[in-house]
């Protein structure tokens, strides 16, 4: 830039996640709001030359709307962004996360100043309570109420913890916020500490998020320098400091009591409540634990007021919901919509519909603790209570869209295998129940299922749900229960007909070469890791059922003009 004399005219900054991951890497040019997507290294020169110097935007890098094929230059006009309401994510992708000044410029730490200098802790709690903000970690407990409990506990020492142990597979909201707008989280944490009267805080963050760790580390250092952390913050007499604790790979540590055990250096197993952390938490002292999204919402509530905030969303679920939209959807990425928005809006307007315009089959919210909802639930408003009623949960923001290529039995098994592997093993229902359910699902998937297995599954599921010690176990059966509830026919197909309708379950399918179509190119033969494919060049290839490990590599590399590899039900004769 400086080489070309643009040093003073153009400022280059790195930003956090802009949300539209699918189109990454992205470059935006402000103030025009121009949006270049899927930019390659070699495109940079062209952007600089043509746009920044020549004033002519590079049209070929603009976003193409799949439906119309039109190029859209400004990101505000792209449906993915147009359908969203950015409240918590308002800074994400706007500011340089490593610059505290930019955050302050955007009104950052105003909320903290207001709270510390103009309000009593009780008043802050009142505001949060009035805003109707509910915990974004999944359970939806009113944040203000939690703080009030924390405030009410008498102790010489209290702690606050930011729960950034986002372990849900398929969810990356907390990580993205921490990378893109760490100060918002930090500000929220400081306000929380002030409200309950804590002088020490922790950010418990997944080890798998090195960028987020770097980002929050830097934010802590910068905000110490500016005096937002440390002794006598802003001259208010309130002192508080934060340190970072990295998780070590245990999903259950997202659960409050496990998280505390982990911070204290123990095995991350949960313990029954009461006592609640707000009474007896870290080292027996009152501890208030809030999710990243919850904390990131606090500064905005303080800055823009309770009325404004509670006007967004529904009566019982105020504010916005943030999802990481993934799976078989066209626009994957970070999505923020007001509570009460329908699933259909999120998936079809913001998400742009199903990949390759395939048929929508199900959507899962809440990660492995949530449930799958079928097409007839698409008009369900997304809020805590509606989702719970439909058999899933809000969870911590994972939203996974599935199309017809997804087998629901396999899906249920996938989530269950996750929770089962992450079960801490402390309580019997979760330790043995999830294992037994997994065995049953495997039995069904392998084509050995019996009619009674579905009932058995449900029975164990209810035992685990009602009997387990912590949230992980109590929610672990949700994917199984919801798929049985909405997709029972698929289970029955596996059991009765020994068919996997989505052609996913390995034991029920096999790969075969359609002789008429095979051009003998040898691509499949080369990639096959188990040497299951034989055949001479230019001759029809054959897959050996015995050797095939069903990894699907051959199907992937078979040239589109041939499409000679076929998946067929396993029990269909070899006489193809």
């Amino acid at each position, binding site marked *: 830039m400086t080489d070309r004399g643009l040093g003073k005219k153009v400022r280059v900054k790195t930003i956090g996640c802009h949300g539209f991951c699918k189109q990454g890497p992205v470059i935006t040019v402000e103030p025009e709001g121009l949006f270049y997507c899927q930019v390659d290294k070699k495109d940079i020169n062209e952007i600089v030359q043509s746009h920044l110097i020549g004033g002519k935007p590079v049209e070929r890098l603009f976003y193409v709307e799949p439906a119309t094929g039109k190029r859209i230059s400004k990101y505000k006009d792209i449906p993915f962004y147009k359908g969203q309401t950015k409240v918590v994510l308002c800074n994400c992708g706007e500011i340089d996360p490593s610059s505290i000044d930019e955050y302050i410029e955007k009104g950052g730490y105003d909320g903290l100043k207001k709270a510390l200098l103009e309000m009593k802790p009780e008043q802050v709690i009142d505001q949060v309570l009035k805003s109707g903000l509910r915990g974004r970690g999944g359970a939806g407990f009113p944040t203000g109420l939690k703080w009030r409990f924390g405030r009410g506990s008498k102790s010489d020492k209290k702690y606050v913890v930011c729960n950034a142990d986002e372990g849900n597979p398929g969810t990356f909201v907390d990580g993205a916020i921490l990378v893109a707008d760490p100060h918002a989280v930090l500000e929220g944490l400081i306000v929380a500490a002030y409200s309950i009267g804590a002088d020490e805080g922790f950010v418990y963050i997944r080890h798998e998020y090195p960028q987020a760790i770097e980002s929050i580390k830097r934010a802590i250092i910068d905000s110490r320098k500016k005096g937002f952390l440390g002794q006598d913050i802003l001259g208010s007499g309130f002192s508080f400091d934060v340190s970072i604790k990295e998780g070590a790979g*245990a999903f259950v540590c997202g659960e409050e009591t496990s998280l505390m055990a982990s911070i204290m250096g123990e*095995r991350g197993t949960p*313990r*029954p409540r*009461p006592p609640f952390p707000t009474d007896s938490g870290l080292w027996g002292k009152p501890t208030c634990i809030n999710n990243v999204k919850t904390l990131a919402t606090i500064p905005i509530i303080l800055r823009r007021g309770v009325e404004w905030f509670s006007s967004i969303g529904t009566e019982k679920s105020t504010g916005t919901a943030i999802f990481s939209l993934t799976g078989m959807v066209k626009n994957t990425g970070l999505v923020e919509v007001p509570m009460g928005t329908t699933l259909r809006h999120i998936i079809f307007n913001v998400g742009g519909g199903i990949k390759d315009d395939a048929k929508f089959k199900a959507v899962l919210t809440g990660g492995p603790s949530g449930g799958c909802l079928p097409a007839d639930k698409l008009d369900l408003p997304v809020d805590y209570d509606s989702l719970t009623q439909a058999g899933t949960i809000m969870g911590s923001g994972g939203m996974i869209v599935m199309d017809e290529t997804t087998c629901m039995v396999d899906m249920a098994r996938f989530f269950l295998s996750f929770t*089962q*592997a*992450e*079960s*801490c*093993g*402390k*309580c*019997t*229902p979760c*330790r*043995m*129940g*999830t*294992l*037994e359910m997994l065995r049953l699902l495997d039995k069904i998937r392998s084509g050995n299922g019996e009619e009674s297995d579905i009932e058995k599954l449900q*029975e*164990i599921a*209810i*035992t685990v749900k*009602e*009997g*387990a*010690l912590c949230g992980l176990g*109590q929610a672990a059966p949700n994917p199984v229960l919801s798929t049985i509830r909405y997709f029972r026919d698929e289970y029955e197909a596996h059991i009765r007909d020994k068919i996997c309708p989505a052609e996913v379950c390995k034991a029920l399918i096999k790969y075969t070469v359609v002789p008429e179509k095979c051009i003998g190119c040898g691509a499949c033969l080369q990639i096959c890791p188990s040497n299951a494919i034989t055949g001479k060049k230019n001759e029809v290839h054959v897959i050996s059922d015995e050797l095939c490990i069903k990894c699907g590599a051959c199907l992937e590399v078979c040239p589109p003009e041939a499409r000679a590899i076929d998946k067929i039900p396993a029990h269909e004769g070899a006489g193809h």
Partner: protein
Amino acid sequence: MPSLTIDGKQIQFKEDGRTILDVAREEGIYIPTLCDHPDLPPYGGCRMCLVEVEGMKDFVTACTTPAKDNMIVNTTNENLVKLKRSILQLMLIEHPSACVVCAEWNACNEYRSQPFKSGLITGCATCPNKASCELRDVIEYIGLDDLGFVSRYKEMPVEKDDPFFDRDYNICILCGRCVRVCDEIRGTGAISFTKRGHETRVDTAFGNSHLDSGCWFCGACIDVCPTGALSSRMMKWYGTPDETVETTCLLCGTGCQIEFDVKWDKIMASHPGSKNSKPNRGHACVLGRFCIPSLMNAPDRLKTPTVRRDGVSIPVSWDEAYERIAEILNEAAPGRVGFVGGPHLTTEAAYLLQKLARGAIGTSNVDFRGSGFASLVVRTLADTDSFAKVGALRDLEKADWIIAVGGDFIKTHQVVAKSCYQAVARGAPLILIGEAGVNLKRWATEHIPLKAKDFSTILSQLAEGEEKLKGVKKRHAEHIKSIVSKGNGAIVFGSGILLARNPGEAMTALLKLIGDKGRIYPTFDYGNEAGAMMAGLQPDLLPGLTSVSASSVRGEIEALWGKKIKAGLSLKQMRMAASKGELDVLYVTDGSLPVKGFKKVKHVIYQSPFPSEWVDRASVILPAAGFVEDSGTVVNMEMKQLKLNQVTPPIGNSKQDWLIFTELGRKLGSESFKYRSPKKVAKELREFTKEIGSGAIVEIEPVRKAADWNPVYRGAILAERIRDLKTFIDALPERERPLSTESMDDFIKRLSEQESADIQVKEVA
């Protein structure tokens, strides 16, 4: 008073944090539990105590939910029972014992605690079952009669390589009691949960043996195990005991109450006594938990009196033996006769032994082996009238700071260590002075690694509040001094202070240091050291700790017993006299006394339950009963009188010590020896102990060698007799590695270099 309702029954309770389960138990309402244990903090893992509380969304665990006023609790709700049944079925997947569906369930129930028999009758080979299987109790309560799921055998080998107990984790239900008791109560951490989820198991680090893992074999894990996963090897096969009797263990000075299973008039097994029995409250050490039956049932126990005639020991009747002893004693001049008692005698027996010496023979040559520490402690306490400063173990658990000096009592006094750990776990700082084993170092918040000879110096410096502390940096000294200046302290000390340059000074300093703001805990190494002292088993002390030179008391006793009394020879002096040929008769009741130095003694009278090297020299051998066959009282390290209950009759033809002394006294013509029970002896002794007089402090000569832990009982070296104990004691030195001092950088550098060297070696090969 607040009240709640359980299953329609209204119950009043004190709202002090007690849980629904506590309230139900007090009221006699059974709520099944498996992971809960009265000694342990609530866990909430087994889910068997789930109850329904009106107004609460989900079922809650009774073991963790505090009882609140107006709560309505239901334990028999249909859904709840169904849920529990289902959870129990899931649990039984991990407990692949055919129990539940076994056709012999009823027959087995009848012979339940007799697996040997039930094995024969029912063909059961899967469960080492103990007298009580709590899992079975719960199954019966819930009324489970089918398994529901296929049991899965984990195919883990039954662990039999470690001493004393077997572990079969194939039938472990992961209630965690063993891990928690080891970690949270005993502070050992020899076992832990490893891995997670369904792969969780109770294990040591990297599957090490328990000998290597730091296990002290206290047996607490076995005592809390609700299934047959952990079982004591010894008590596995003997069946239902005819009765169980609790008595005091005399293998060290703690005075633990141990319960014995008796069958066919033999003790078959020992385990800690009731939770309410002081001082150990349901805990024991490796000796009390595993060693006593083998010791008492040893095949080489002395069973018949013998008399040496023409160089050969010939079995004789008791009367003949007494005759011969009377002959020997009457021949010798009283001043040339020595009596060596032992700290393993009951207070009554010790009293009678010294009365025999002083009253019947007319000599004060009475002492016992290893009396140095007891002598120092008891005399100093008597001299300064500070018996009240000796604390009970219960107080130790509540101490706010602890100094440990002169002993590795985690090794020697595991129950004291447990109490100590309870304080440490509560956050009390532990200041360790001198060297000690790895556990004590682990618990210590401050470690002052001084040589033993400096104990008196540092204790004096602490007591006098001097600015400098030997071997401690200045900043640190401040910290330590600030700790000990607070109230409610505890000083736990052992016989190691005898190694100090000036043990007397160390002891006085220690008392001054504790002042009125705490208690001291002398860890006596043998059973009844304090009791033997008080009974007058000392050359210069009369019963009741009165000095021989105190003429008024002495006069009274002389009048009573009809013999003149003056100070006699101590054990050391006896040995010197013997080596000069100035001692003719030695009456030994402690076989662990070395023969060395006594070879010129003409006649040895040996009285013990066990043979020793004295047997070859003894003119008369008297078979004595072991402590489980005896009754009377002892005084433990808390300076409390504890009762010894007779558990089994004396083996063979042996007799209790007090009885032998009584009968011998009469044989010697002393009319006052007409006691019919130890109670009568105790009554007589009480006359002397009413007012504890003053004994002049004797300078204790420092012993220059630290004694290894080598538990003995009246001449029986335990490790020689109990193979498992020997294995254990042999493994102990391995643990005494010095703590690592290298930094993480150095450590990682060393490891990396080592690793690259290994790789090179591999490549060359």
